[in-house]
């Protein structure tokens, strides 16, 4: 059994974070350079944390698998970042953001964390603006806002359709300022292979240099995993091609609990799949639903062109089913409804796709205004599909997008292994069973700039001058096990490529552990995953050598971890015998297809413990409390 203590501070929810800050232990400025901290990942969470810690004076070692830290997957985020600044004077505030996030997450998040997130969010915008992030401005020079799904206020800040890129560059520049100052050291093209625990505390990492194949170690006083989400377990997703679960999973195998792996968000507005050669799906920002109207023809098999279908023969299913939120319902609701109408045979051209139509918006507001808002998204769409959304409606369908599950962390963002932290999408985070739009960037930066740099001191203080070096025999042993593992992969002499097996895994997951799940399907999927694991061991081939750049080897290593994770996701989805947020069990729904939660049995976090190769995982639960916002049924009607 895992021992889980969330360490939530005492007191009223509004006071917890402030109280905690007043009591957290500190490390003095002259002592900080004596500490080594490894930050794995340079996305928003990792770059923000690494730059903040380095600026405090810690010695920070930062790694990413890309050739430059600036290319981390966060760069791809389009739509925006939330903060309850209430610039629009529309009634926003910390409580509202807390409320929206808790409700949006269908009451499966830790209340105290969500409140803190809402509380620190406004400071993030200030921080980023100070770094020179070119947020969109009104003509008078003030910051502009737009609205996003699942809420009734306009609190989203943005930089055209490239908000993630600009926030990322702000964090990247801050990080490289610290590299120049000598406080941080960058390890690009480097992959974490293992974490090293000594006497019950995480004391370093083992990594592979992707250019030379060398296996090396870094000894540290704390390790921070900011390695992003595991959406690519589905093979096709909106995530970047190389996103993977390896870092989190290897830490999991060394004892870190993995929480709520089955919570995966399927984003409603993506470009539909066009062929089986595809490995990457393209997201069309949710902000499009501000002006676009979602519809399908009322008549199944209607082959007329969209402009030939008269108004009364169109089914604006979101507007009809959810009059108060309309096209701006949360993502899980929008995605599930797209699935339903396609299941009913109403998909456009008989395929699994629906229209997102801008004709009315262009008529009412003019092509210029719409072009200014979404021009780059429209261009991107046209480039891929050859259709211009200015002239014909977009065709969209849901795709895997974000993982709410991840490494379990306490209030300090520390895993159950002392000294090992997880931030950003890599932790099980504050989004419960469903994340609202524009709130991941917020959470990544909250973790990286605001929270971790305060909370990490607490555990560092306790180990003052108790240094470990890579001479400790544990490092040699861990390095050897990594080398053996890689040699094992290189020795596979089958005929199937890692990518081919990964693709098959993706299909299994999409069909059985995607937008709708059943006990039967999940059980079947676990069987299929077992045989894919077998295929991976016996039919796979890894070409080339291990002592040079070898992308097939990288892929093979990640695939092994994805397979293990996939199995656990199905098990978690099976045992969570309720529906909540994105986790939709067909057995638990209302007559009109809404989720039915079972708070009594599942108002908790499911945390899984690795029990060794071949042994089933063991589950521990962390009970959730709902004091500040009592449980209610989520309704967007």
């Amino acid at each position, binding site marked *: 059994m895992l021992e889980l203590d969330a360490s939530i501070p005492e007191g009223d929810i509004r006071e917890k974070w402030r109280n905690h800050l007043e009591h957290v232990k500190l490390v003095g400025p002259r002592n900080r350079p004596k500490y080594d901290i490894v930050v794995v990942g340079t996305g928003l969470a990792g770059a923000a944390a690494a730059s903040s810690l380095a600026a405090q004076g810690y010695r920070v070692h930062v790694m990413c698998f890309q050739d430059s830290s600036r290319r981390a997957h966060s760069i791809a985020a389009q739509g925006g970042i939330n903060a309850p600044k209430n610039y629009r004077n529309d009634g926003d505030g910390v409580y509202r953001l807390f409320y929206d996030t808790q409700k949006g997450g269908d009451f499966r998040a830790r209340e105290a964390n969500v409140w803190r997130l809402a509380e620190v969010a406004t400071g993030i915008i200030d921080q980023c603006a100070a770094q020179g992030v070119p947020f969109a401005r009104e003509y008078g020079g003030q910051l502009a806002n737009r609205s996003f799904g699942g809420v009734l206020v306009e609190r989203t800040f943005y930089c055209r359709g490239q908000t993630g890129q600009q926030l990322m560059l702000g964090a990247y*520049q801050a990080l490289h300022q610290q590299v120049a100052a000598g406080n941080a050291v*960058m390890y690009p093209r480097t992959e974490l292979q293992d974490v090293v625990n000594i006497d019950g505390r995480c004391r370093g990492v083992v990594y592979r240099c992707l250019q030379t194949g060398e296996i090396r170690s870094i000894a540290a006083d704390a390790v921070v995993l900011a390695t992003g989400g595991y959406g690519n377990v589905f093979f096709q997703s909106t995530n970047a091609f190389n996103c993977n679960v390896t870092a989190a999973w290897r830490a999991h195998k060394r004892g870190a609990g993995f929480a709520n792996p089955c919570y995966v968000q399927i984003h409603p507005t993506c470009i539909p799949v066009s062929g089986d050669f595809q490995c990457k799906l393209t997201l069309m920002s949710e902000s499009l639903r501000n002006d676009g109207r979602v519809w399908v023809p009322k008549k199944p098999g209607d082959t007329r062109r969209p402009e030939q279908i008269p108004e009364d023969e169109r089914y604006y299913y979101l507007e009809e089913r959810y009059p108060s939120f309309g096209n701006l319902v949360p993502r899980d609701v929008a995605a599930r409804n797209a699935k339903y109408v396609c299941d009913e045979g109403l998909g456009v051209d008989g395929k699994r796709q629906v229209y997102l139509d801008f004709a009315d918006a262009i008529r009412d507001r003019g092509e210029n205004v719409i072009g200014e808002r979404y021009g780059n998204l429209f261009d991107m769409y046209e480039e891929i599909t050859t259709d211009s959304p200015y002239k014909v409606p977009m065709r969209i369908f849901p795709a895997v997008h974000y993982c709410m599950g991840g490494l379990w962390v306490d209030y300090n963002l520390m895993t159950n292994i002392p000294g090992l932290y997880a931030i950003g999408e890599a932790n099980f985070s504050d989004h419960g069973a469903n994340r609202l739009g524009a709130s991941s960037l917020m959470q990544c930066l909250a973790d990286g700039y605001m929270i971790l740099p305060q909370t990490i001191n607490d555990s560092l203080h306790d180990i003052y001058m108790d240094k470990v070096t890579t001479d400790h025999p544990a490092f040699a042993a861990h390095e050897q096990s990594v080398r053996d593992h890689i040699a094992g992969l290189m020795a596979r002499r089958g005929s199937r490529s890692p990518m081919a097996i990964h693709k098959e895994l993706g299909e299994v997951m999409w069909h059985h552990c995607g937008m709708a799940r059943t006990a039967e399907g999940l059980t079947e999927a676990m069987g299929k995953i077992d045989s894919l694991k077998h295929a991976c061991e016996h039919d796979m081939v890894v070409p080339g050598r291990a002592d040079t750049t070898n992308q097939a080897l990288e892929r093979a290593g990640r695939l092994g971890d994805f397979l293990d994770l996939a199995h656990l996701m199905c098990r978690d989805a099976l045992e969570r015998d309720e529906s909540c947020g994105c986790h939709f069990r067909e057995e638990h729904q209302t007559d009109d297809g809404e989720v039915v939660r079972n708070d009594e049995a599942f108002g908790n976090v499911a945390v899984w413990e690795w029990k060794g190769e071949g042994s089933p995982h063991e589950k521990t639960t962390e009970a959730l409390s709902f004091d500040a916002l009592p449980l209610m049924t989520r309704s967007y009607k």
Partner: protein
Amino acid sequence: MRVILHVWRQDGPEASGGFERHELSAVEPDMSFLEMLDTLNEQLISNGHDPVTFDSDCREGICGACSCVINGRPHGPGHKSTTCQIRMRAFCDGDEIWIEPFRSGAFPVVKDLMVDRTAFDRIIEAGGYISTHSGPKPEPNASLVPHSIAEEAMDAAECIGCGACVAACPNAAAMLFTAAKVSHLGLLPQGQPERWKRARSMVEKMDEEGFGACTNFAECQDACPKGVSIRFIGRMNRDYMKAALCEPETRQGPLKAH
């Protein structure tokens, strides 16, 4: 459709390289260029050969990882697009396609089509930031940024650091990349205190890394997937000159007597 590929193969930075010819049938027009390379790699693996190494990540034109010269053009035949955004419908059945890495002395080849662009990170380290620590900051609306200035800064900030400008330039200059950052930060009020120092040290670093000088070919702007304008190079040159001539921000202290 069917295409004939001539792909640059090179084992490592020190090894000599050359083109390797492959035929690929079953190419679909909707495939992206990189999905076509994936298909080639699957074919190579199943025939027991080494797959082609190339950089890519986001595959939607924003991370700047992908970096191929296709038929002599960095990022290939598209207009304002990256290699990963090129679709095979840009080619015809039976076409021969030549694929090479971005070439420049400052970007050594790592393997095949993959190059080392860490020189760009070092240019940023020379001053491509606004010095600030994390923590409480002033309210951003307290410092107004006119819409047009914010948009102009954003035009410059769009640079994805891909290096196509360098690969396209006959002098292998990194002017467009450097100018984009100097301009992004130099346009905003927050960037003013370090503006002159930034322009000087980034330009000096650029030279030190072995990038060439600008002689106004403007090839960079043509190749740039984000349409970063060469007018930013003019802007950077002005900032650089001004900084070099009058060092407006440098504290001079009292004149020495001798």
